[in-house]
Structure formats: structure tokens, C-alpha cells
């Protein structure tokens, strides 16, 4: 589980805008221009731009289990 404290300070590594927790397993950039999504695998958020790039065009509701 990701702590609320850390979630509050996490930002998108590409655009530095806040991310929000979705479906408990994704951190989604809240910047509409960016739309990168970062998976949380085995409880570890993967905050790498190339990882976020993979899911730019995936709609939030279509995100599966990372």
C-alpha cells in the first residue's frame, strides 16, 4: 500500500504535475496534456518516463492489473 504522505508529494517525472492513485495500482498524471500512467508492481511504483509513455493512449477505465 502506498502511503498518503508519499502520494501527496509524488509528481510525474516528465511534467512534474501531481499524480493520482487509480484502482490502487496505477499513478496517473493529472495533467491533461501529459496523460502518462505509472504502474505499481508488487507494491513498487515504477516512476520512469519510458514506463509512463507506454500507457499514454490507454484510457484510465481500460487500465488492467500491472
Amino acid at each position, binding site marked *: 500500500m502506498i*502511503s498518503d504522505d508519499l502520494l501527496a*508529494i*509524488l509528481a510525474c*517525472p516528465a511534467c512534474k504535475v*501531481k*499524480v493520482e492513485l487509480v484502482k490502487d495500482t496505477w499513478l496517473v498524471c493529472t495533467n491533461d496534456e501529459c496523460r502518462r500512467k505509472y504502474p505499481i508492481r508488487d507494491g*513498487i511504483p*515504477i*516512476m520512469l*518516463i519510458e514506463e509512463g509513455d507506454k500507457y499514454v493512449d490507454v484510457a484510465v477505465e481500460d487500465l488492467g492489473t500491472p
Partner: protein
Amino acid sequence: MDKEPTFFDFAAEVGLTKHLGGLGATEELIELCHIGEGKYVLDVGCGAGVTPCFIAKRYGCRVVGVDISEGMIERSKERAKREGVADRVEFRVADAQDLPFEDDLFDAVITESVTAFPEDKQRAVNEYARVTKPGGYIGLNESTWLKVPPPPEVVAWASQEVGASVKPLTSDAWAGLLEGAALREVIVRTYEINTQNEARGVLRRYGCRGMLGVLGRILSLYARSPAYRRFVKEVREGGLTPENLDEYFGYGLYVGRK
């Protein structure tokens, strides 16, 4: 086919990471960065999590560790749990050049044998500065050319010892990166390395029980991975430490204030 594993893949697998100067250098960096009770600290390139757990345990700080390798972060999380500091240490996979944090967050940002690796070192140091609070400290312990140009046998030894993609700088160049990120009160301390002390440092950092665990994982990896056996063979063929090593190669502590 999978890519040939790197030095760091092996390091993550066996749970052993190190930096020049060992625990003594870590303690000195902590002091120079004014890390103490109540401080909020980021360790960039935390490897197997030894330094974040040490800081959390000894100083009661809250610490965030990031590393570019998922394997390392798994090891870090295991360590935090084992050492009873999981409530105040958190880990993320992230690249030093693109940190996933808001501006002005941490009292101190430290790196140990990390900033010598990224392609764009200035960009990495700018990121450290961005996430540090005004008045906070940025501290680097990085491999350093004490004299240039280094002879080829010293370059070969350094890449084998510290990691194949290491690109050390001179102390002036390291200090220049801190100044390039508009940091002030820059402190530079350089040290020669002593290979005997390095071995002692690893033992002190991990303790006897920790080293036994590491050795067990090394043996198991050696038994099951042909790539690791090739790596060990290359290292053995690499030969002895060059005699003139300490003349050219060492490490430096570089600290600046935002």
C-alpha cells in the same frame, strides 16, 4: 533473447551494493549535509537500501530512496522491513535525471556512487536541487579522477570495480556541476582509495550475517547463471589492482546548499 545482464543486475540479484569510502564516507556525507533528527531525506540511487535504512535507524529521519532498478528496490524494501524501519522509509523506482517529486521537498538529497553514471550529469544535479528545500543540502559521494588523463589499466580497473558504465569526473568538474545548479557554499573533499579499507568497509556496512546472506546469493547465482559465470571469469582475467591506482583514482564528497 534477453539482454546480457549488467554489473548492476548482478548486484541487485545478490543484494550487494557499495560505494567508495564505505560507511565512514556515508557518515561524513551525512554530517556535511546536516542530516539529523526530524529531517526529510532523499537518497538517489539507493541500491539495496543500506544507506536509507541506516539514516532512518540512527537519526530517526524519514527517508525516501529511489533507484532505477526494480530489483534493487525489492531488496531495499526487504531490508527496511528486516531492520524495522519500514514505517519511515519508502522506495520508488525512478531515474536520477527525472525525479518524480514536487519542488522544494527535502531537507537533504544525497547520492553515493550514482551521479557518475547518468548520461546528463548536470540534469541529474539540477533535479536534486529542484526537489531540495531552499537552505537544504545536496551531497554527492562520487568516484573522482585525482589526476588526468588516467592510464588505460586504471580506467579498466575503475569500470570493473565501480560498474562498467562509470564516468568519473575531476573534482573541479564535480564542483562545477553543483555550481551549475546554482548551489552555494560548495564543499569539496577528495580521498585516495585504499583497497584494504574498501574490503573492511563492505564488511562494516553489511555486518557478518549480512555478508553470509550475500555470499549465499552469490553462490546460488554462480550455480544457475551462465552469464554470471562469464562475468566472474572476465573479472578474474582483469588482473590485479594497478600499482598507480591511488595516484589517479579516488572519490570525493561534494556538498552544496540551495
